[in-house]
């Protein structure tokens, strides 16, 4: 419904955009292409994460992204939370134990390595930014914990009323999906610096230092989902929306209850007000 509403209004918005944007500068502006909005299970007023999708997205993160990108604010125990991937307690323990973390100092003052525990956060792939930059041609792969809120598909101001009414807060996931699926050969005549990869959806230029990370079949799903770049990108974007907004489902649920309560309360107050003022002209 939200999508239809958006599309229905697109003509009006576009004409408004022309009027509003009349004074805009002509300098090259990025991204080169506008991000398309996707359909997400967690969008809108009653949106919910798809647990299986988050588990697949986690798998994509672990097998592809994690070799360069940290997830510093996420602990293994978070993976067991309701409203998230919701792995079982034993699964979380087993998952954590697959990682080696550095702990200490012990009683002799030495750091030591041990198996991961649920309370540990994901070990970062590089010990520090310098090491990360050195291994990645000078660019530090950013932490992904809040990435889905730290990037956004750029939207024209004329969309504002529609975005507000449809509770559009998925601009980050839309952008991540667009970026992950948007790699292509640069059009003839477009020069791209060595070590960067053309992507018209990239926010800050025509090319970025990350090469296309996904390819068909790179991750093996065991739930029969298609093993395509499109599906991987969708799943990992959803997973990163969860890491950025782990209480999203609880937030929408409580929000609904709060608003219903307040509206009923306001209705009763209005009737009270009418009664109090019934005999007073005003």
């Amino acid at each position, binding site marked *: 419904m939200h999508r239809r509403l958006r599309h229905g209004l697109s003509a009006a918005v576009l004409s408004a955009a022309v009027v509003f944007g*009349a*004074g*805009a*500068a002509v300098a090259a502006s990025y991204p080169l292409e506008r991000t398309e909005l996707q359909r997400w299970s967690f969008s809108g*007023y009653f949106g919910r994460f798809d647990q299986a999708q988050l588990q697949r997205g986690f798998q994509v993160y672990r097998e592809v992204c994690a070799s360069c990108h940290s997830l*510093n*604010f996420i602990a293994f125990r*978070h993976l067991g939370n309701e409203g998230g991937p919701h792995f079982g307690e034993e699964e979380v323990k087993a998952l954590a134990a697959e990682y080696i973390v550095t702990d200490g100092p012990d009683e002799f003052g030495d750091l030591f390595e041990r198996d991961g525990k649920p309370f540990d956060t994901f070990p970062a792939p590089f010990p520090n930014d310098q090491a990360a930059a050195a291994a990645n041609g000078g660019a530090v792969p*950013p932490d992904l*914990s*809040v990435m889905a*809120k*730290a*990037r*956004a598909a750029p939207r024209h*101001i004329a969309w504002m009323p529609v*975005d*507000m009414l449809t*509770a*559009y*807060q998925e*601009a*980050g996931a839309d952008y991540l999906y667009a970026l992950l699926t948007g790699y292509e050969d640069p059009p003839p005549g477009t020069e791209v610096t060595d070590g960067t990869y053309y992507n018209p959806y990239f926010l*800050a230029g025509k090319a970025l230092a990350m090469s296309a990370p996904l390819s068909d079949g790179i991750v093996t799903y065991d739930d029969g989902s298609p093993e395509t770049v499109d599906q991987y990108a969708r799943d990992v974007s959803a997973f990163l929306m969860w890491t*950025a907004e*782990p*209480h999203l489902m609880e*937030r*929408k649920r*409580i*929000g*609904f209850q*709060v*608003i219903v309560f*307040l*509206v009923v*309360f*306001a209705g009763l*107050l*209005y009737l*009270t*007000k009418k009664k*109090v*003022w*019934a*005999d*007073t*002209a*005003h």
Partner: protein
Amino acid sequence: MSAESTYQPKSGFGRWMEARLPIMGLVHDSFVVYPTPRNLNYLWAFGAILTMMLVLQILTGIVLAMHYIPDAAMAFASIEHIMRDVNYGWLLRYLHANGASMFFVAVYIHMARSMYYGSYKEPREVLWILGVIIFLLMIATAFMGYVLPWGQMSFWAATVITNLFSAIPLFGEGITTWLWGGFAVDSPTLNRFYSLHYLLPFMIVGVVVLHVWALHVVGQNNPLGIEVRSKQDTVRFTPHATVKDVFASVVFLVVLAWLMFYLPNFLGHPDNYIPANSLQTPAHIVPEWYFLPFYAILRAIPDKLMGVIALFASIGILAFLPWLDTSRVRSARFRPLYFWFFWIFMIVVVGLGYLGAQTPEGGFLLAARLLTAYYFAHFLIILPIIGLIERPRPLPSSIAESVLASSGGEAGEAAPAE
């Protein structure tokens, strides 16, 4: 407040207390029997709404402060800790951040209402000036609060705004270094902003007390802009005004709830979820939406020092409004010329807000300059002149007369103030 109290304590303890500290009498006189004009509309509920928002911000802020760490290395992570692991931390933080936005929505409506109905005019000049001081304190508090998450926008907003002081001749650089507590925005800056962000709201509470005190001395203005002349013109504050205020406050909370539960990051900038990095300037540094008109004025002026002066003047000029507006008639309902200039001014401010979010070049810059010129002309040229040349419509002789005329006069006499 100034008159003899009519409060009669009902209990023995009440009489004992009243003879020693007449606080219940004060509350009774100020919020129960206080005569309030009978013709107030819902725009007059924003005083109560603002009080509620101030309390809400202080309460959520105190709890957030228990979990937040004002250190450049840990601030961002402590916010993420609040969002993830503190019980209902996400709720508190989204309520606090969106509460700040709604606080400004309310204060702008409150100020626009004053302008439309001429509430700042004699004898309410001091009341208005206290309001301008509250607005200034709110600006400072909100700005410093925005710095605390220590994201990219936090850091660069702090850098841009503190750098404004370097425009001051001779002492500028010294003042900036003193503000920073170092040679750049860093941990000492964050720490003092945190301290002040905690302090200023309580200063706001103090000025709000003075604001309400001044209000209760001179009485409320009303949509007709004429003074209360008899008891026929007023009703008791409780229950009449109280029930309207509570109803309006709950409706306002519905909007706040919708914003914080369904669009919690809509008004924020995505870059503020990138940890502060002093080596990487964001492509566009923009303040929160409620500062955009003033930001547009700052950037419209080509000279840095003059820009800073214009920025402060655009807010400071409000304090002179009671004397710049030369009309004796308060309400725009009876001011055919001012009515239109009021709405033009509102459109200009919204236009400045839009321009504040754009890159200041080309057509945007030109538009921002024109609107900035108009902003000041509104106060310095238009208001003084139209007050002199305008022919106001005839004013009704009393609030009661006007109210009874429009309601057919049936129910008029039923409930005068006691």
